[in-house]
């Protein structure tokens, strides 16, 4: 409690707006928010605002699209978020996150950060529940000198995931990002910002078998769409201890117009290599991920329209290793064997009428993944839509909010090509189920409520809940309580 009080005194701004007014500002502001730049705290349209929040959230899926992340998830989180603006020329931002939880029935994946290292995950044929614990710290400082501004940012994430039944993976992730940005204000009042960032990533993974009678499952080094690196399949140390290491870069451009126009562009490239520590740290797989995002629109105090186009390209490289005859395994060459192209394009509109806010959006999305030899393909496309309405009203010391939303996904279709004679029957069945799930029509309805009570002019307590249910029994829920200051 003393720490929280000290934090409160440090970051609470001598602001003309009380805490409820600042909360309402955040929930009702349509001003664009550049987020992928180190100057985001300074360029944020919001007054100083900080919170400490504890919550529980979870998912429950009857037929998950990605069994690699389990079909049930339950996680407790503690989240501290800071935005301090002592004056208009500088801002400090920060976040601390601690989460602890469990993913149930994780299948075909013994690796952490699956969506980052895909398709080069290490998998076992049994699956099971996976516990996880994660820490995240980030901080940024930005200041303005005349027409120019400068920003510095850094973040660090540590993740520990493990399983308590054979086969037992124990994965430790370390993820560091550093960013710089600069920009200036034009005579018209518009703001330009350009940022760069660099990240370093590592993950160590060790799968153990405690059963003294030996392993009754095998470990596979997947290479995409049902293929795997057969040489290292098994349960010995050559197969069960691996390491990921890599780095990435990113760049962003932001434009905040004085009269409502805005635009953002970002590009990120991450290159992660998969190593075998038991084979003289030789690399044997590599994934390169490139993502570009472009969005823009026009915002007033009452309405906003925005369009976006996102594209991603993931390429997977498989290394050819020699026979290790001389006691050292060496790489001979590498092939580009896997590729995945994804896109997402859409538009969204928002309108505010008194205490009500209405949103609607439509987006087309799809992907095409293939493994070159023997030929394997998985592709899908569909239309995403959303409608939402929310109500936010202050009553003396209280601020109450209720929102409802509907989401829908209409599939255009999916394609799967798997050479069954070169694929394990279990993986053929798994991908057949994945294709069927990609072809499902999805409709969801969500409801969230939040109540906030002012304790002091710059301190309030809040609590809320959110849930989403769908026709395919893919449901999420969240409960939270916190302090704002």
């Amino acid at each position, binding site marked *: 409690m003393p720490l929280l009080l000290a934090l409160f005194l440090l970051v609470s701004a001598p602001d003309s707006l009380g805490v409820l007014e600042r909360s309402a500002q955040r929930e009702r502001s349509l001003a664009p928010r550049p987020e992928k730049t180190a100057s985001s705290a300074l360029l944020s349209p919001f007054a100083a605002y900080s919170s400490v929040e504890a919550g529980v959230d979870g998912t429950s899926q009857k037929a998950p699209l990605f069994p690699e992340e389990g079909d049930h998830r339950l996680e407790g989180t503690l989240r501290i978020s800071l935005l301090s603006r002592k004056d208009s020329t500088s801002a400090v931002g920060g976040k601390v996150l601690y989460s602890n939880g469990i993913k149930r029935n994780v299948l075909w994946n013994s690796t952490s950060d699956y969506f980052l290292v895909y398709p080069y995950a290490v998998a076992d044929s049994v699956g099971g529940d996976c516990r996880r614990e994660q820490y995240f710290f980030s901080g940024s400082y930005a200041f303005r000198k005349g027409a120019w501004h400068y920003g510095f940012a850094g973040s660090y994430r540590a993740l520990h995931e493990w399983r308590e039944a054979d086969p037992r993976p124990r994965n430790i992730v370390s993820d560091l990002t550093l960013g710089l940005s600069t920009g200036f204000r034009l005579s018209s009042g518009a703001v330009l910002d350009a940022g760069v960032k660099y990240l370093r990533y590592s993950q160590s993974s060790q799968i153990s078998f405690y059963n003294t009678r030996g392993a009754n499952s095998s470990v596979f080094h997947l290479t995409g769409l049902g293929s795997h690196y057969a040489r290292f*399949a098994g349960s010995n140390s050559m197969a069960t201890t691996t390491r990921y290491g890599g780095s990435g870069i990113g760049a962003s451009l932001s434009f905040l117009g004085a009269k409502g126009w805005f635009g953002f562009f970002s590009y990120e490239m991450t290159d992660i290599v998969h190593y075998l520590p038991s084979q003289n740290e030789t690399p044997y797989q590599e994934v390169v991920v490139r993502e570009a995002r472009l969005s823009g629109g026009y915002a007033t105090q009452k309405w906003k329209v925005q369009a976006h186009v996102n594209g991603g390209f993931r390429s997977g490289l*498989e290394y050819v290793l020699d026979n*290790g005859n001389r006691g050292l395994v060496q790489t001979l060459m590498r092939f580009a064997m896997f590729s995945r192209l994804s896109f997402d394009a859409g538009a969204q509109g928002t309108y505010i009428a008194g205490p009500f806010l209405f949103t609607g959006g439509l987006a087309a999305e799809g992907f095409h993944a293939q493994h070159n030899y023997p030929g394997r393909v998985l592709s899908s496309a569909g239309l995403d839509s959303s409608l939402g309405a929310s109500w936010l009203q202050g009553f003396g010391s209280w601020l109450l909010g209720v929102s409802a939303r509907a989401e829908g996904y209409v599939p255009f279709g999916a394609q799967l090509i798997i050479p069954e004679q070169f694929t394990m029957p279990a993986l053929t069945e798994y991908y057949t189920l994945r294709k069927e799930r990609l072809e499902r029509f999805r409709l969801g309805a969500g409801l969230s409520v939040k109540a906030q009570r002012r304790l002091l002019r710059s301190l309030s307590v809040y609590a809320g809940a959110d849930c989403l249910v769908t026709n395919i029994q893919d449901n999420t829920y969240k409960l939270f309580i916190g302090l704002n200051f």
Partner: protein
Amino acid sequence: MRKQYILYYLVAALSVLSCGTKVEPELFCELTLSLATEDGARVASMTVSSSLEGNQCRNLNTGMNYTYPVFEDNEALLRVQKGVYLLSFDAVATLEDGSTRSVRHYGHADPQNAVNLLSGRETLTLELVYLD
């Protein structure tokens, strides 16, 4: 002046985007398999059964096993993914003089003797021993 700074920003941003992976070589190797018997006799024809356990033309890393083509006039052509291979088989060869002999190739049967097929075209001589 401001337009110059905008241009500098764009150049700086684009220069960051220029990193990428190396261009990869062609995936396949056109492999010519040539037979060499103990006594130098030429093999008129030979079929290697893929159902016999131990007969393998297997990529050491990916585990993909290829079916041997029919050997005619001491040779056969096979298209394989470039890589490191294990080759071994037992078969019945029809020699040039019309006789049939049981033969075995075991020169690349285990990882220690695996052969690297890394270029677009390779020729590999398979030493045959008579089993009868």
